[in-house]
């Protein structure tokens, strides 16, 4: 039997194999991770809810099924996972990091939740996030910030900081995030983990509490590229309950990740986006990026410079389109059918206004007001309409770049993790975190962040981007780079994370 602290250091693929061969039970694996959460989450605060015995009960079903000789429900059966608290779960509260949904028990499961359950994956609990996924540091959670395991005075990124920190603190080998402008990839970069934003429509949004519907995309988070690929194949695929879900087979990302790990990228064209990197990027981030480019060249890839001149307007377009959709989507929180009600005032409208005032945090309010403005008569054309045109131009930049290159690369973020409190009162400084990730969301294409070394002791990420449904090539390049980087560095970056102390 493997010791419980060792179990938490294994990859999801390794755990699945040990469970399948009955070397360890799924219950032992679940308990090892619950113990780890009990030991470190007081400091990290990655979780808003821990499933506890319910997780053990789910794992015991996997054990019973394997003991009965039934084939595993999926290649990840019995492996624990941390679920971002933006997916509905009938057996756990779902808050989206907001007071307005404190204690809410949804009456149905998200499709992602159902697919995880059907795959026999043990859901350990729900992870902390910026309120309604609005933020880049997890400081905008109504339930307090999550801390970065690499330096607990720093943020883990956001909005999916809880999911990323859970991976880096070895509280879970797998997690689910959502990426509207970088909320999977930026926390992955900040925590030395792997995060994938699939093609828009690649993973169902049914039961995913909406931030900006035309941009939101759920995706896998893990400590290795292969683990992310395994999870991607579990959650991906067409869902008739989401009208924007793509009715096409899930790209063969597991096979691509395995092939990539062999390390040969000859014949592959990697587009280096001229406008991403350099000025505005921290020297340590830039150095990690340049080392990654050399690594890709050594693997046989051909580097091609590509230009995407409209990416510089991406952030401006995003912060018009997103608040506009937010102001509309969050109108559903009306104090009538579910969630908080503050019984103050004469009638429904006053109760509604008092409830939303008490239930929403400052960043959510700012974005609702901004979106209300951008959509108002007389301003619509100059702001929202113009932003939608810029979106077209960004999609065209991508199309032109992908005509010259199989994948595009950039640093995932302009900086490494910043101290808690540094940007929380400066919205614009916070928004700049997503400079490099936003264009992919606007175009609806795919992106992954893989660890690219340390800058002053903090992880930085390499972003690899691919065209719509081009995930396979993206995973292949990511796995090849990961294997080469780990070999050169003497092991995975994540093994260098300091032990979390209370």
């Amino acid at each position, binding site marked *: 039997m493997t010791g419980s602290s060792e179990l938490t250091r294994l990859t999801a693929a390794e755990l699945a194999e040990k469970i399948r061969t009955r070397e360890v039970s799924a219950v032992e694996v679940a308990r090892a991770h619950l113990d780890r959460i009990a030991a470190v989450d007081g400091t990290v605060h990655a979780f808003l809810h821990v499933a506890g015995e319910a997780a053990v009960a789910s794992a015991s079903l996997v054990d019973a099924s394997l003991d009965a000789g039934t084939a595993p429900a999926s290649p990840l059966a019995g492996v624990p996972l941390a679920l971002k608290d933006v997916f509905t779960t009938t057996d756990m509260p779902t808050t989206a990091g907001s007071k307005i949904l404190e204690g809410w028990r949804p009456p149905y499961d998200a499709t992602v939740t159902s697919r995880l359950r059907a795959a026999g994956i043990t859901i350990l609990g729900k992870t902390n996030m910026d309120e309604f996924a609005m933020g880049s540091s997890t400081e905008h959670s109504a339930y307090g910030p999550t801390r970065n395991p690499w330096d607990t005075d720093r943020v883990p990124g956001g909005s999916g900081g809880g999911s990323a920190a859970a991976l880096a603190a070895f509280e879970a080998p797998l997690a689910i995030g959502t990426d509207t402008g970088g909320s999977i990839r930026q926390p992955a970069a900040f925590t030395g983990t792997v995060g994938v934003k699939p093609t828009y429509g690649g993973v169902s949004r049914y039961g995913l509490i909406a931030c900006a519907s035309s941009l939101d995309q759920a995706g896998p988070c893990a400590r290795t590229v292969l683990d992310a690929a395994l999870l991607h194949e579990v959650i991906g695929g067409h869902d008739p309950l989401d009208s924007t879900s793509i009715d096409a087979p899930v790209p063969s990302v597991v096979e691509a990740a395995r092939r990539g790990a062999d390390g040969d990228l000859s014949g592959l064209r990697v587009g280096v986006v001229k406008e991403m990197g350099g000025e505005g990027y921290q020297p340590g981030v830039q150095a990690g990026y340049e080392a990654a480019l050399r690594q890709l060249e050594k693997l046989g890839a051909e580097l091609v410079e590509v230009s995407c001149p409209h990416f510089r307007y991406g952030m401006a377009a995003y912060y018009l389109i997103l608040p506009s959709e937010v102001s509309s989507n969050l109108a559903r929180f009306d104090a*009538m059918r579910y969630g908080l*009600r503050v019984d103050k005032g004469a009638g429904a409208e006053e109760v509604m206004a008092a409830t939303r005032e008490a239930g929403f945090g400052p960043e959510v309010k700012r974005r609702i007001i901004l979106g209300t403005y951008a959509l108002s008569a007389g301003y619509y054309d100059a702001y929202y309409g113009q932003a939608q045109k810029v979106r077209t131009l960004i999609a065209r930049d991508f199309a032109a770049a992908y005509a010259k290159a199989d994948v595009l690369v950039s640093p995932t973020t302009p900086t490494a993790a910043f101290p808690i409190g540094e940007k929380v009162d400066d919205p614009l400084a916070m928004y700049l975190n997503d400079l490099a990730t936003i264009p992919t969301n606007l175009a*609806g294409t795919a992106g992954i962040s893989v660890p690219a070394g340390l800058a002053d002791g903090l992880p930085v990420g390499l972003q690899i981007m691919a065209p719509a449904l081009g995930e396979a090539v993206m995973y292949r390049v990511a796995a090849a780079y990961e294997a080469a980087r780990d070999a050169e560095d003497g092991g995975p970056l994540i093994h260098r994370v300091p032990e979390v102390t209370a």
Partner: protein
Amino acid sequence: MSSTDGSADTSGLTRDEVAHLARLARLAVTDDELDVFAGQLEVILGAVAGVGEVAADDIPPMSHAVPLENVFRADERRPGLSQQQALAGAPAAEDGRFRVPQILGEEA
């Protein structure tokens, strides 16, 4: 709301305008919040007004990453929420229905 330069309306927002928008969005913001938000929103608007620099008169707008079309399904019964499930999260319920505050004001 007024524009000072008439082009991309990048003049920022006054405190009164923020208060008006908050009312439209059913947010009972406090005086302190109005002070803070007005300043922050001005900075944000200054940054996002950059979209106006792009010459895009002949560019079609893009509302969605994938072309949207109507999605149909067979007209078959499928399980939905029970009344009990639908009301389970309600702030107030009575006789199997959502109980809501008075909808119309005193003057109605």
